[in-house]
């Protein structure tokens, strides 16, 4: 039996459902630009009344409409793919950031920095060779040598400071915690905590209210995507939970966080050691993240690599800087004092300075470059870019520079008046073209050029790698956007759809209402 009242109820339900549809549409439109928001859709279903009744009118299907569920557009396969690719993207973008910074520090194309000071130094040697008795030429030689030393110091400090800002300086945990890697570790731990909390909330809301907590799911996905840029997490979806792993170490299990990261101060080679520790006990689960997870994935690994002691790390470039500083200084010193440590009595030749008291040539006694302002502590092997300094004795008296080289007898120049002799000054000048064995048979300048070139090369490689990875992730994100994002036109069509359906249902209500009045007036 078809009851006229049923139509009334059905019309009422329809109006309610269409209102709900409208609210889904309005939610979609409101969030069309929200990051990570996935479009929702109202799934309606038809609901039959007293399905079991059998009568003459049984052919007429009477029923109403109900909300099946609000579906959130999602593509789990794409999501896991994005998470996976994000880890490589995170590594590449962090490495590129570091190498771009190095590119800036080493950018001496316009002739500044060490390149420029070496060039000026060698020009000064040329002037010295032209006029070895000129105080001006000598003072200029010394000030150019000083500028070489200070450019080395400056470059060293820039690199060392930058390294400290990335991974700390292996001294205090306070500096480490304020470094990029310290902050990143805290951020990762925060995200793990938030994901665990969301796991909990989503489960509760799914079981207790029976409602899909779409906005929480979106939020969790956003967190997963940003976490996966930082560390290469594996995400396994178990019901309403996501379980997180790194390698085979489980970080989050359902509503519980099992492990977190910890940054501890290391040594000068690796100023920071990242370990995975048990959240409850604090015991190491993985003692050294860098050793255990060697793949180039995640920003954390990129920072560990840049701040560590591997090839193309900042330390590697600092070491190259030290090598060139040391070998340059030692080569200059070896020309200045060929008769180290002291001129033997039997020496037949010596490098000679000018004694200002007598204005005569006499064997040189002072080094040009030192590793410590206190010349007593001189040790050629201890010279680095950090400590290279010009000997104060030479700075105070530029006539200490040995410009001459010639025969000596019993420690005295055989012709002490040969002030114009410039053999040693020429040797300073010719050092420019002298390959140094310890620099792989390159000259000091060429070795440094190759260091600069390798920085440029790394930066350029890393940039193109990043571009490729960015393109592939962007494609995935586009694909995801295309399936889960909001399209305004689509929503507007839905809007009109619900509006029309609402108007139609209201019309049905009015019609039934009139029919009821007819029934009411039937007996009159």
């Amino acid at each position, binding site marked *: 039996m078809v009851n006229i009242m049923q139509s009334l109820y059905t019309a009422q339900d329809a109006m309610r459902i269409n209102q709900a549809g409208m609210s889904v549409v309005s939610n979609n439109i409101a969030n069309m630009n929200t990051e990570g928001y996935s479009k929702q859709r109202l799934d309606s279903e038809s609901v039959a009344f007293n399905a079991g009744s059998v009568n003459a009118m049984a052919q007429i299907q009477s029923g109403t409409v109900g909300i099946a569920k609000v579906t959130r557009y999602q593509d789990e396969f794409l999501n896991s793919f994005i998470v996976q690719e994000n880890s490589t993207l995170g590594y590449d973008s962090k490495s590129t950031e570091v190498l771009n910074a190095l590119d800036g520090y080493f950018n001496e*194309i316009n002739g500044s920095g060490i390149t420029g000071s070496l060039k000026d130094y060698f020009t000064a040697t040329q002037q010295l060779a032209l006029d070895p008795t000129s105080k001006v030429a000598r003072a200029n030689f010394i000030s150019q040598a000083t500028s070489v030393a200070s450019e080395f110091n400056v470059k060293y400090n820039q690199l060392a400071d930058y390294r400290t800002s990335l991974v700390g300086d292996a001294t205090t945990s306070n500096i480490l915690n304020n470094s990029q890697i310290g902050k990143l570790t805290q951020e990762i731990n925060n995200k793990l905590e938030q994901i665990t909390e969301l796991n909990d909330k989503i489960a509760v809301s799914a079981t207790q209210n029976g409602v899909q907590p779409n906005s929480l799911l979106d939020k969790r996905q956003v967190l997963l995507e940003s976490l996966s840029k930082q560390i290469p997490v594996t995400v396994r979806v178990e019901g309403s939970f996501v379980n997180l792993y790194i390698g085979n170490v489980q970080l989050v299990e359902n509503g519980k966080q099992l492990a977190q990261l910890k940054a501890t101060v290391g040594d000068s080679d690796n100023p920071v050691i990242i370990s995975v520790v048990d959240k409850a006990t604090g015991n190491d689960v993985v003692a050294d993240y860098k050793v255990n997870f060697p793949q180039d994935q995640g920003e954390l690994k990129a920072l560990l690599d840049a701040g560590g002691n591997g090839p193309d790390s900042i330390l590697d470039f600092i070491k190259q800087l030290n090598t060139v500083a040391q070998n340059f200084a030692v080569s200059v010193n070896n020309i200045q004092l060929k008769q180290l440590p002291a001129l033997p009595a039997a020496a037949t030749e010596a490098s000679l300075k000018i004694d200002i008291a007598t204005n005569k040539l006499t064997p040189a006694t002072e080094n040009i470059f030192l590793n410590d302002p206190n010349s007593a502590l001189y040790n050629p092997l201890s010279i680095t870019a950090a400590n290279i300094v010009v000997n104060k004795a030479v700075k105070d008296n530029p006539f200490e520079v040995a410009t001459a080289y010639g*025969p000596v007898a019993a420690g005295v120049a055989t012709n002490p008046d040969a002030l114009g002799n410039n053999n040693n000054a020429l040797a300073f000048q010719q050092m420019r073209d002298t390959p140094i064995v310890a620099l792989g048979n390159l000259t000091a300048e060429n070795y440094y*050029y190759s260091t600069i070139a390798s920085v440029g090369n790394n930066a*350029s490689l890393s940039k193109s790698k990043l571009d490729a990875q960015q393109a592939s992730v962007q494609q995935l994100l*586009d694909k995801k*956007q295309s399936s889960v994002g909001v399209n305004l036109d689509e929503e507007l069509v839905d809007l009109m759809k619900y509006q029309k359906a609402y108007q139609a249902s209201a019309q049905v209500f009015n019609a039934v209402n009139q029919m009821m009045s007819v029934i009411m007036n039937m007996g009159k």
Partner: protein
Amino acid sequence: MVSGRITNQYLNQAIINNTMKNQEKFVNLNFQNSTQKKVNNLSDDPISLPDLFSAKNNLERIKNYNTNIDLNIAEMSTAENTLDLANKDLQRVFALTTQASNELNTKDETTAIANEISSLLSHIVNLANTNYDGKYIFSGANINTPAYSIAGNDYTYKGTKDADGYKVQVQVNDNSTMTLGQNGDNIFGEYYVDGGGTQVSTGPIGHINELLNDLKSTPPNFVNIRAKIDVFKKDSENVTYSRAQYGTNIDILEKIKSQLAQDKISTETRRSNIEDADLIETASLIKQQEYALQASLQSSTKMIQNSLLNFMQ
């Protein structure tokens, strides 16, 4: 590119990304145009960096070598001119010696000749002590010491001798140094009594002193004086030879200089090829990029302006 649903976020993001890309290219080109260099970052052209640096380095060296050469050419021209004057003096000495060898000369005439030769000697010694730019150019490496010191009848050479082993060298290109100056004793000789009491007498200075002694002796030693005619001829030749040496060196330096000029051009070309922006190319690329940017902005705004919203009442 995406097929299927185009969502608003995708649309917005794509517009932003594309505009950014176009703008980045525009900015880079603009930067190239304003620096006039196409290599501004190390990563712009890492392969060519060592070459670029070494080219710049070589240009600097060429500049240095040129300075070396210019200064030394000036010094050697001075030496050459000085030796020219010295040679004129020697020729006058030669003429006077010929005159003096005439035994009919009166005593007064001989004295007058001796006086003139004596003043020529001091002029030659003055020339040997020429100081150019603070350096005694005939003292070898002993640039702060006058070449000759005069004490009584002694004319002692105080400069560097060949046997000393002290030299002044000049770097004129990457692989060669040259010794350009000449030690004065080889040109002018010496006249002094050494520690053992032996009279040392060499070169023009020695020979003129001997001549003066011969003229001053009574009677003048005409045999010796006549013998000197040939000696001075040889001395003059010797000075001419030294002078020619300076000339030859100047010539060599001029040749090296023109070689350096060639090197400079080729090195400059090498540097420019790596580093300098092709301004015409950059300008046309900038124009292209400008159009691309405008076009993309225009089509993008059209795309987002239109939606169903415009047609709903």
